[in-house]
């Protein structure tokens, strides 16, 4: 047996022994996810134990260096761990924008002090992070953001407004794009700042969406004082950090196309498809697309870990994955018929299917619209001339 075979059998045995049975059930909805944070809300003891056990082993972030709270695993070992977790249906122990977005940016752009301070907290789920990017006047044209950050000698002073801040009302800290030079060309006056959401002058207001839920907020900054050492990367070079982080955000969002629930949508909808040959055909085509995309995701991650992925490939993944997820939910609604339209009944689990369907419409908007991604692919991968 080679080392990887040994690692696989040991990992399998460890997961069998340590993953609670409750954590081997598919998540029913977003509320089943474990987000950690300063005031964590756990659905049950198993969820808490699973997060803590995995964090203690460094396996909430298996491929980060051990010194920053990671597992120090190689790409091949990380892949085996994910396969073994998938084999028993183990849930992700910790959902975190710190893990999927901020962490990679800190690993690349943070100072040693910043890495030592923030990364282990992220790995343990001690701090729940949110992302302050979009503003009312800066959506697809993100670099036109206007939140102002002034150097006041011993601190930064932040004033402005963010919007579409996911879970800002539940987050402990924010990683935020701010303008530190009002005169420079728009991409060159931006910096990347971290601060505590409990700071004086920070307020949030949830936005009611078409799904009836409020996962996003408006976030206001009114004379917020931020310590000087909480700026990541160089002053006025925050756009580089922002773009790097967006790549990771897009990877995360592209994973939604995989659905997570069942390998075959048709198998899950079989009863409804039995007397509807046209819908069955649409679903069969969808299953082809999603299984092909699953292979694409595996290939993309393998290439990324090996340093072989094109830097703009996350844009392709984000585009394809989110469009796929929207199609999935259109098909689920079509198969559900009028049953799936019920909005409040217990029968429909309070409109679960309909609310999820509506939620997916944001997938191709958040993190850069599909049109933004296609533009990036056209220019950076296909090298088509700029308009």
């Amino acid at each position, binding site marked *: 047996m080679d080392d990887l075979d040994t690692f696989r059998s040991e990992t399998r045995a460890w997961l069998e022994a340590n993953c609670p049975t409750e954590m081997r059930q598919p998540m029913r909805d977003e509320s089943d996810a474990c987000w950690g944070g300063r005031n964590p809300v756990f659905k049950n003891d198993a969820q808490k134990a699973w997060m803590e056990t995995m964090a203690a082993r460094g396996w909430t972030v298996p491929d980060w260096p051990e010194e920053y709270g990671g597992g120090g695993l190689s790409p091949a070992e990380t892949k085996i761990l994910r396969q073994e977790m998938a084999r028993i249906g183990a849930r992700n122990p910790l959902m975190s924008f710190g893990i999927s977005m901020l962490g990679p940016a800190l690993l690349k752009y943070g100072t040693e002090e910043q890495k030592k301070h923030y990364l282990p907290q992220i790995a343990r789920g001690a701090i729940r992070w949110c992302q302050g990017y979009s503003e009312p006047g800066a959506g697809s044209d993100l670099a036109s953001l206007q939140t102002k950050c002034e150097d006041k000698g011993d601190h930064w002073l932040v004033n402005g407004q963010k919007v579409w801040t996911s879970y800002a009302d539940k987050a402990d800290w924010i990683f935020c794009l701010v303008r530190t030079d009002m005169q420079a060309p728009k991409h060159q006056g931006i910096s990347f700042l971290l601060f505590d959401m409990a700071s004086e002058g920070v307020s949030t207001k949830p936005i009611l969406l078409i799904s009836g839920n409020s996962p996003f907020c408006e976030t206001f900054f009114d004379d917020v004082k931020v310590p000087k050492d909480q700026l990541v990367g160089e002053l006025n070079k925050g756009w580089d950090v922002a773009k790097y982080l967006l790549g990771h955000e897009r990877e995360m969002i592209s994973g939604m196309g995989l659905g997570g629930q069942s390998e075959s949508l*048709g198998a899950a909808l079989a009863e409804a498809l039995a007397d509807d040959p046209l819908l069955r055909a649409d679903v069969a085509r969808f299953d082809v697309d999603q299984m092909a*995309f699953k292979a694409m995701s595996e290939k993309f991650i393998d290439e990324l870990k090996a340093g072989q992925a094109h830097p703009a490939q996350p844009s392709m993944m984000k585009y394809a994955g989110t469009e796929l997820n929207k199609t999935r939910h259109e098909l689920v609604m079509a198969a559900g018929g009028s049953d799936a339209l019920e909005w409040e009944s217990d029968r429909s689990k309070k409109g679960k299917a309909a609310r999820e369907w509506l939620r997916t419409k944001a997938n191709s908007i958040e993190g850069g619209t599909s049109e933004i991604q296609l533009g990036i692919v056209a220019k950076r991968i*296909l*090298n088509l001339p700029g308009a």
Partner: protein
Amino acid sequence: MPLYLNDDQAMLRDSARSFMAEEGAIGKQLRHWRDKSCKDGFGHALWKQFAEMGFTGILIGEDDGGLGLGHVEAGIVLEEIGRNLTPSPFLTTAIAFVEAVKGTPHGARWFPGILAGETVAALAVDEGAKHRPDGIEMRAERSGNGFSLSGRKQFVVQGASAAVTLVAAQTDEGLTLFAVEKDAKGLEVEGVRLADSSIGARLTFDEVTVDADAVIGEVGGGAEILDRALNAGRTGAAAELVGVGSASMDMTVDYLKQRKQFGKLIGEFQALQFRAAHLYSELEIARAATLKAQQLLDEGGADAEAMVSVAKAKAGRASLLAVQEGVQMHGGIGMTDEYDIGLYMKRDRVLNELFGDPAYHADKLARMKGY
């Protein structure tokens, strides 16, 4: 195993790429043989060169003088074949037929000729206009110490040039495969030129008698071997489709960077940029699905068959999009015979039909998944 090519495979790709771009180029092969109305539709000298490169032995075991490699390597060569529309009997002979007779006495009989680039083999499966291997009706009746075959086959790719053809027919024991040689009495072969100028054949069997040792595998045991051969062929066709689609996209993207209208390069227009980017995405996904199917076939995994159907369907649709967008974005010049993009459209159509079209494979996947 990571889902990208390892160093050895990348080396094979590089050598296959330069060989095919040079020796298998459209002007040198496809147009040359087409314009001569060649009865085979390909050049025998090139088939020999394939053998010298080692390509024909990719799936043949080392004990039999081959390279003992797998479907990933076969696919590498096929993608380059697709890029250059190189006509050859590679897919039917070195992939599907080899996979069918591997480990049987027919291997010893035919492998030396295949390894030498002399023998061409074909598969006779389809009996109607569509690929329906579950509905084979052709009969093989016991006769003397062998069988007597009667019936019709069509879309037998390279059937007009083949020294040996795998023929699927029903016996009292069930589906059975036979290796039928070209001079068999009662076998009529009508070579037919297809839209892409390759040659298929319609075969008519009128009480063609073969010995018992013409049976490949066991009498009544043909279904499993046929599945194996077809899945190898489907995965190979998917790889070739990825090549066809990729070359079409590359040509088209190049054209967008050269052609000016309204005082601008047409590649500056967002309407075309978005379509080109969407096409790129579809082809990348098709390539990943195809590589996954190849790896699963090589590993012998239980999931392989579903992934083969995914790959054939996805690669077919992605390549179809590539040739359609290719002709459209080229505009009028794309309709001319002089320009190559139209040749890609024709090849795509043939490969999409070969071994089952996207609808066939989506349906097959659905049945495998229980709906």
